[in-house]
């Protein structure tokens, strides 16, 4: 059974991306926006196709290197959703040259294509290549503001880091191959031994780089700060949740971490990621950078779900990923509305947020809601996600980790509220009303609805997550 129809979304997306590349050559720069519309539209089409191909059980397709199961479909849809939202942000972003709109959009689509393969891969070869596709597109996207030295530098650091970690990962895969005789992740029997464990560790490093797990997180703030804002939003979401998806698949379902004594490692990683992310975020004055650290911390929370290692943990990972998309994209959207003020490189310092509530109460209020959701205050969606994750940790007896996590969420409040403080408590420098574009508002409202509705009535979300947590094997 080849089940080629299960690859239709990927094919469609690839075709559209290639089309965009070509269109870039023929469409005049002034119509560049058209390409963005085309791009998000094609992502939406792919999303629809994924939705049509949602299956209840797992299929393995051509070459048996990938699978289509509810879990991968869930993550694919999430990735595509993120892509759409980020493209909407990109539409309103003033710093990007319109003449390269096609390249930009195509790279976004390439990247999300890589993620779609990443979350459905069950062979390290495919996973590795998908990861590289993501990486290479992301390097370019990060450096997309060519005249901006920060953007260049961010891209370079990202690149060096990425290349290094993929080299290490390949080395790990080679050891894996040595230990098992295959690069496949299924049908392994009971592998073990130091070689195998070491290989898993090195492979985890590759994943950790993408998911910005400490101590593989160092590139994150630099790259995020340097990257154009829509890219930052994209990088903080899509690769992270896709990688979390693949980590969950590999270390929870295929080669359970507990079998290889990796649970301790995951616990340390989770604790370290949260703690470092939050504590370094405390004294950031650049909001982009602060959110970068915050996204590191959020990765730590997601890891708790993986540590707990049972079905509830997996559901927690998926649930939190979803919620995280909504609240983080919302936060970034507001940051873009405020910071992308037409000056070169924008102004993302905290002081740019002074008195935002006077300039646009709606934006400020939404930002507060997103931030509170990020810090896990009910009744917002972030709370539901955290609650689920923590209860997974509790169920499996990881009390210490839960305590670390809740303390971390307290620490996080400090810097999240700092933004709120600037928006509400500081007087505005100039009180000109702040207006954002319609697409940005569209994205914002979508995100807000997600945060509010799933915060107040999360049942449909949880039900669908529980239904989607069925995966191969």
């Amino acid at each position, binding site marked *: 059974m080849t089940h080629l129809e299960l690859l239709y979304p990927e094919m469609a997306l690839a075709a559209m991306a290639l089309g965009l590349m070509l269109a870039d050559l023929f469409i005049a720069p002034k119509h560049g926006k058209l390409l963005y519309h085309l791009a998000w539209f094609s992502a939406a089409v792919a999303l629809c196709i994924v939705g049509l191909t949602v299956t209840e059980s797992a299929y393995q397709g051509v070459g048996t290197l990938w699978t289509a199961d509810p879990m991968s479909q869930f993550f694919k849809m999430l990735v595509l959703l993120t892509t759409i939202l980020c493209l909407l942000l990109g539409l309103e972003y003033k710093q990007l040259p319109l003449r390269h709109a096609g390249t930009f959009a195509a790279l976004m689509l390439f990247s999300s294509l890589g993620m779609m393969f990443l979350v459905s891969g069950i062979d390290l070869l495919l996973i590795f290549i998908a990861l590289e596709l993501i990486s290479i597109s992301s390097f370019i996207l990060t450096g997309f503001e060519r005249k901006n030295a920060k953007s260049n530098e961010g891209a370079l*650091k990202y690149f060096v880091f990425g290349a290094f970690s993929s080299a290490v990962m390949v080395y790990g895969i080679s050891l894996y191959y040595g230990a098992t005789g295959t690069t496949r992740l299924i049908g392994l029997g009971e592998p073990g031994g130091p070689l195998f464990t070491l290989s898993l*560790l090195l492979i985890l490093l590759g994943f950790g780089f993408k998911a910005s797990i400490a101590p593989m997180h160092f590139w994150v703030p630099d790259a995020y700060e340097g990257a154009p804002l829509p890219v930052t939003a994209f990088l903080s979401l899509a690769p992270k949740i896709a990688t979390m998806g693949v980590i969950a698949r590999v270390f929870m379902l295929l080669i359970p971490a507990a079998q290889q004594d990796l649970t301790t490692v995951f616990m340390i990683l989770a604790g370290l990621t949260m703690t470092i992310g939050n504590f370094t975020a405390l004294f950031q004055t650049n909001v982009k950078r602060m959110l970068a650290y915050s996204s590191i911390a959020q990765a730590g929370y997601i890891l708790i779900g993986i540590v707990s290692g049972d079905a509830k943990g997996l559901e927690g990972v998926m649930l939190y990923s979803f919620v995280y998309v909504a609240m983080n994209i919302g936060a970034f959207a507001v940051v873009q509305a405020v910071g992308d003020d037409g000056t070169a490189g924008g102004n993302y310092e905290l002081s740019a947020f002074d008195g935002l509530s006077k300039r646009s109460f709606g934006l400020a209020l939404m930002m507060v809601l997103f931030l509170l959701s990020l810090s896990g205050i009910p009744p917002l969606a972030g709370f539901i996600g955290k609650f689920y994750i923590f209860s997974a940790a509790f169920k499996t007896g990881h009390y210490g980790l839960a305590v670390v996590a809740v303390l971390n969420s307290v620490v996080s409040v400090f810097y999240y509220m700092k933004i709120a403080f600037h928006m509400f408590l500081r007087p505005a420098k100039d009180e000109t009303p702040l207006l954002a574009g319609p697409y940005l508002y569209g994205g914002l409202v979508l995100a807000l609805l997600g945060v509010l509705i799933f915060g107040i009535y999360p049942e449909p979300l949880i039900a669908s997550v529980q239904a989607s947590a069925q995966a191969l094997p």
Partner: protein
Amino acid sequence: MLDYAFLIPLIPLAASLIILLGGKEDPHSPLPYVGVAAMAWCLVQSLFIFWDVATATAPLLPAPDWTWFSFGATAAGKPYIYDMPLNVLIDGPAALMLVVVTLVSLLVQVYSLAYMHGDARFKRYFAFLSFFTASMLGLVVSNNLFVTFACWELVGVSSYLLIGFWFEKQGPPYAAKKAFMTTKLGDCGLYLALLMVFIQVGSFQFTQIREFVALGYMPPLIATVIGLGILFGAAGKSAQFPLFIWLPDAMEGPTPVSALIHAATMVAAGVYLVGRMYFLFAVSPTAMEFVAWAGAITAFMAATMAMVSYDIKRVLAFSTVSQLGFMMCALGAYGYTAGLFHLTTHAFFKALLFLGAGSVIHAVHTNDMRQMGGLSKKMPVTFVTMFIASLSIGGFPLLSGWWSKEMILEKVFEHDPRLFYVLTASALMTAFYMFRMIFLTFTGNDRDHEKHHHAHESPLMMTAPLVLLAFLSVFTGWLLHRHDLIGRLLPFELAEHAGHHFPHWLGYAVTGLACGSMVLSWFFYGGDLSAVTALKEKLLPLFNLLERRYFLDEFFLWLVDLCDRAAKLAFWFDAHVIDQVFIDGWGLVMKIFAELSNLFDALFVDKTVDGFGGLTMDVGVGLRSLVTNGQIQEYLMYIAVAVSLFATLILSR
């Protein structure tokens, strides 16, 4: 009439509210007459009740039986809902007290109509006065210890308000606060006693507690504790040693207030309460002994202090304290009847003395007796009435004070002769200083011509009460003693105390000595004061000790200061330790964390610790210098280190 006894406290309360809330503040407001009328009604009702009680035998528990509030309580491990009853117990002492309180109150109110006329807060004064009377009457009639305590506190606050009535002056606010705090200190003991009573008995009803004790359920030790608690409370309210320091200061209030509250009624509440709980004291000889000696010491100390005071009201205040000591001592010496008898008689002549003093002060506008003198001609009525009162308090035969005091001395001697000697000394001093006051004020030369010149007799509204009280001061004792009325009203049910026999001649001797000390007083103060001055020079340290009130004030001020220091210390602790522990302590943990993560980084940025922000800044700086200095190869290095560590961790297992 008895069935409506509950109205007695409520009517003045209503009157008080009417006066307080009705109409505007006006120096000539007619509203105070409402208070007077209410009090008159109460007096009538009290007299009827008195008659009922005097002709009946058993203590009476008139209806209704209302519930004030209900709360959950536990008995024998089972929770139930306890209804706090609001009912009235009219027995002999209560009936007697009712008459005393309403009568004195009425007279004082009438007197005040003239005395306070024209005061800017004329109306408010009467509202407070009525409120006081209401609470006092509530205290008297209640059958519920808890309600009694509530009223007890309310009379305290009325006293506070009335002492501080002229709050725009310097002295009264302080005196009011001092009075309130000192009595409150005593109330703490009473509070604990209340708690203990309920825990032990499961009820606050006097009748039920009494039954409980009568059945012998009350362990003596608990009884002692409760008794001491009550005694402490009573010591506060009735100005017993060592809590009497507030009463002399309380004289800052208007003089009629002093007459009513700080002489006749409120200060007697402590004695009255001990009397009401007497059945409980009877179980505990220890508590009794404490009561007796507290009373005796108070009586003696106050009397000595009264000997040297020149403030006419202070003399009276000390005298009050001393007399209260007599009562307390009597109660402690198993002289229940005697103690309460003296309470009654004392109320009248002491009220008279105060009102008279008020009249004098009204005339000469000073409290200092050294600026008076020779007023007898100017103010004959005042002089005569006060003279009678002094005779009465001094123990001149057949006057009411004599009856009660003799009774006390007899009981005390029977109990313990040592107490008797102390009290006798005090009694002699009483006679001495009372006449010292009379002589200084009314006889001899006018020491201040200006003041003397302007002095005049008070109006009828003020003198009428004086006359009436003088009448009572003369005859009450005899009336009550006749046919042993007092004995029947205040039945002493305890088994007869086997003690020393009181020889009759001793009674006569004391009477004689008292009269003698009145004469002695004439020797010192009747003419010029040279003899006193000479004596004072000889006994200067003693005079100083007495004038400084045994340094008790200093002691309490020291205590207050100690509290203040404790408060400052506590606040310092709060702001600099507790707060910092939770802010900086948290920061400290983080700092350690930062230090640890700084192992590779020699450049630790040391900053002064300054609250939350500072420390987190520290942490931030520490971490930041470690993790994101922008040097990518350092980042890579950390990864390499971490991977090696993890590999070691897993592979070494």
